[in-house]
Structure formats: C-alpha cells, structure tokens
C-alpha cells in the first residue's frame, strides 16, 4: 500500500512538474547569478550543482525521464516477451524451435556493448534508449513466459477445456493467459527497475539524451564534478535515493498485485 502511494506520488510529481516549475531555470542565462555547489537551505531545497542549477528542480525533471523510460521500455519488453513466449509455448513443435533459436540469438548478445553501440549509432533520443532496453531485455522474459506456458498447458483443467470442446483461442484466453499473468506481472515489475537502472547506466556513461535531465544523468554530472570527494552529498544522494525508492516500490507493488489477482492468496 505504501509502495503504491509512493509510486503514485512520483508519477503525479513527474506529470505536474512542467506546470509548477520552469525549464528555463536550467538555462545558463538564468543560473549565472546562482551560487554554485551551494548546500541545501531555504532558498535551494536540495542545494545547487557546479553550474548553480537547483538539484531539486533537476530531480523533478529527471523523474519524468526516468519513469517514462522505465514504463515504455517495460511495455516493449513485456509485449514482445509475451507474444513470443506464449506462441512458442502453446504451439510447440517447429514454431517453438524457430522462435526459441531467434530468442537465443538475442539472449547471447552481450547487453552493455550492444546498448552502447546502438546508443552511439542511432539518434540520441529517449526513444533510442527505450528501444535499446527493449531489444536487449525481451528474450529473458520470453523464455520465462514460455516455460510457464509449457507447464500450464499440461494442466488437467486445460484438458477439461479441450474435452468440453473449447478452441485454441478460448484455451489461451481463459486458461493459459490468466495463469501466466502472475509471472508476466512479476517480470514486468522487475523490468521497470531494470529499465530505470539501464537508463541510469547509459546516461551515466554519457550515452543518454544530452538534452534531457535524468537521474542517471545527474549521477553522471555528480561524478564529473567530483561531488563525492568534494563532500557535495546533496548532488548525488537525492537521485540515488529516488532511484532506490522507485525500484523498491515497484518490486513490493508487484508482489501486492499478485496477491490481489490470485484468488488463493486473497484474504477474506
């Protein structure tokens, strides 16, 4: 419950940020008079960075990017993973073999080098990052979902549905998909934090969208300005804590969702 409140809080904050703050506050022309590397106080809630930009403002704008990339990359990962995993597991035979060889091919591609190459070659934008994460992380969820489908497909209630005269669409829609849903949710709640962390990694490596501020980009800036050795904790701690909170909230929320959807776990 607390995790849901936290998540909704972050999402609302991300959505309303453009209305309550002004992006122009980051422009050099407006930050010239600001104190640099200023510790948190009444004027600057979370202090300022080496260019005099407000860390609190960056955190708010960064939430937009991090959450957007987290959700969009997860949707892409799960949609491809479910389609491939469900088709391969349900039909089996040569369809399964072909799809799984393709999956294996993507699975053995090392993630970070591919991500770096793609991010370097393609246009620098958030969509590129989303695509990079999606392309490199769908195979594991496809494999996961396929194995669960293989198990559910052999359950007696699927036999009963077939004996009742049910068609393939009915069996997949009414029996297999609902019983694979917990796994889909689990892998989605795991994919969101992984996507956020991947965006962080890429931004930290300087491969993110340079025109956007993200939590990973903030950490990158903090590292470049030697914030840790200079004792400027207000520069790296807020984005780090924010990433941790969102990732934790998603993981806990995933477990809670599973309890709501599974009648056996429902409390009466």
């Amino acid at each position: 419950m607390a995790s849901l409140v936290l998540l909704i809080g972050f999402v609302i904050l991300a959505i309303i940020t453009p209305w309550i703050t002004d992006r122009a506050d980051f422009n050099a022309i407006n930050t010239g008079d600001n104190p640099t590397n200023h510790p948190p106080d009444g004027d600057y809630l979370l202090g300022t960075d080496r260019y005099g930009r407000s860390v609190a403002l960056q955190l708010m704008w960064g939430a937009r990017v991090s959450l957007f990339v987290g959700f969009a990359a997860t949707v892409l990962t799960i949609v491809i993973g479910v389609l491939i995993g469900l088709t391969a597991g349900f039909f089996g035979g040569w369809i399964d073999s072909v799809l799984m060889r393709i999956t294996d091919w993507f699975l053995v591609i090392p993630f970070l080098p591919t991500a770096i190459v793609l991010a370097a070659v393609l246009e620098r934008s958030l969509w590129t990052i989303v695509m990079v994460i999606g392309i490199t992380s769908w195979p594991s969820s496809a494999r996961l979902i396929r194995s669960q489908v293989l198990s559910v497909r052999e359950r007696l209630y699927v036999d009963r549905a077939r004996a009742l005269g049910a068609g393939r669409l009915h069996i997949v829609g009414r029996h297999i998909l609902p019983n694979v849903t917990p796994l889909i949710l689990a892998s989605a709640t795991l994919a969101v934090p992984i996507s956020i962390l991947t965006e962080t990694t890429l931004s930290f490596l300087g491969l993110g969208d340079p025109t956007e501020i993200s939590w990973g980009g903030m950490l990158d800036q903090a590292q470049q300005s030697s914030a840790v050795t200079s004792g400027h904790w207000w520069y790296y701690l807020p984005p780090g804590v924010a990433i941790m909170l969102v990732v934790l909230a998603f993981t806990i929320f995933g477990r809670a969702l599973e309890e709501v959807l599974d009648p056996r776990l429902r409390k009466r």
Partner: protein
Amino acid sequence: MWGWRVSDPSPNGNVVELTNVQVQFNGGRVRAVDTVSLEVGRSEVVALVGESGCGKTTLIRSIIGLEPLAHGSITVLGQEVGGRRGLRSLRRRVQMIFQDPTGALNPRHSIYEAVAEGLRIHKVKGHEPTLVAGALSSAGLRPAERYLRRFPHELSGGQRQRVLIAAAMALQPALLLADEPVASLDASIRGEILALMRSFVDSHGVSIIAVTHDLGLAWNIADRVAVMYLGRIVEVGPTEEVLGAPKHPYTRALLSVVPEVAGLEQQILTGETPDPSRVPSGCRFHPRCPVVASGEADRLGFGDRCRGVDLELEPEVGDHRVACHAVAISATAGQ
C-alpha cells in the same frame, strides 16, 4: 430443464461404438490401446477395469478426442467422431469427469465460471445463471447460490467433484466418461458420488463408461465390465458373470486379491510389469499367466498356442466374451 432425457440414440440403440480403436505413442512404437472394440447402450454403465498402465484412461481420452486415433473409428449416436477433429455438437454429447477434481478446475475461475464454461462454448440456449444454478443443485450442491462465487480451493474434494459433475451434466450429455471418479476422494464421500452418477443414469438415461481399478466399485455401479490388459480388452460381459464367474486367468487373478471375494485362491501375479512398447508374442498375458506358468497349458497341449498365437475376444456365454486359449479350447472340448 432437469426433466431432460437422452433421446436420439443411433439406429442400433448404441450411444457409443468403438471399432478396432488403436492409440499410439512415440511415433507408433507404443500401442497404448491396441485394437479395442466396445459398444455401450443407452442407460448402460460399463466399468473398464485393469491395472495401472493398461490403457484404460487412454481409451476414454480417445473417445472424447484428447488422444488422436491411429486406427479404427469411434461413433457417438451414430455419427463418427474419431480422427483428428470431432464435430463440436457431438463433443457436447460426451462429457468427462476426471480423477483429480482439484487439477481439473482452473484455480482462477469461480464455481460459476467453471460450470458456465461449457454452456458458453456450446452456446447453450437459456438463462445462464438459471442453468448453472440448476446444474449445481442437481449435483447436490444446495443451495447453489452459496457456491456460485466461491473458488475451487474453498471447497472440499467431494464438492469439487460435484462441481465437475454439474458442469458435465449441464450440457445434457448422452455419455459420461468417468476416469477413476472417486479414487481421490474420502471413502465416506465415494458412495455419495457414485449414487449421484447412478441417479443420472436412472433419471436422464445417460450412459457411463467408468474407468477404475477398484473391482468393488465396478460391482456396485456397472451393468457390464470390460477387463483390459496391456491395451486390449481380455474379458467383457455382464457384471455378475465377469466378476461372479471370471473366465480369463487375468480377471481371476485380479479378483483373487480383493479381500471381500471369498472362494478364490489368492493369486499374486509374478513376472515383470507389462510394457506396452514390448508386447509379448502370442497371448499377451502368457508371461504372467498362472495357467502357462504351472505347466497346465502344456500338459493339456495348448501351451504353444498361448506362446505363439495372438487371439481376439471369443464369445463364451451370451454377451460374455473372453480372449483366452485355455477358455476357448475347454469350451470346444465341452461341446
């Protein structure tokens, strides 16, 4: 709705006819069911008995289309359903009850959905909630309203089996296939479930093929008994004759280990358990047959036939048919 009776049987009055049915696994190396013919009349209860792995469950799964036929044909109400795809309307007329009611119910579906599923698949006309409630109460779950919104894990094993029976009977089948319907239930519930199934035979004219390894159960509910061994029926006939005066050495051995049956010397079968991928030549029971093992077959001069000549079911007395050289020869000698 609950006044319905099975009408339209086929011209010869049989609800289901199996002709030389063969089901293969592993690309034909294993014949789980090997040339079985059986017919079931209207309102008839047939028990399929035999030890584990003899193919009895595979046989009824093939009737409902869960196992493709390699050879032979199956007709339900005079129309062929065998082969790879059966007619959906005929599917409705054959329903199945499973051994494990817990596994046969989707844990995420409420009782209402479990019963309504078949009605929706077959687009049964009528007010769905009424049909579902009627089916549940006819299966002894009263008041039905108390069960509709529950989930399988909230019911007892007996109640779950009643739900499956209700779901099957809601489609007004002509033939009910029951795969060890009470094997997973408490002894105290077994009688109730069997009585419930029997009541459908009397009230609706439903026929039942019940698979069981429990001869006592067969004795209680069956009109006819078919004994299977290694994919084939070795003895079939009216219950009183097959279980009261068994002819086949295998049936006799099965009966001799039932404690309640007096008068038969206990016979524990020796030899390795049968393997359907390596069916013995001749009579497939001969490696374990007490008549062959004791040397009696050789003494009477037909031991070579047992070991070398495969055989079909031969008429014994009336409907009672046996596949055994010893029985066939003694019958000829008696004439």
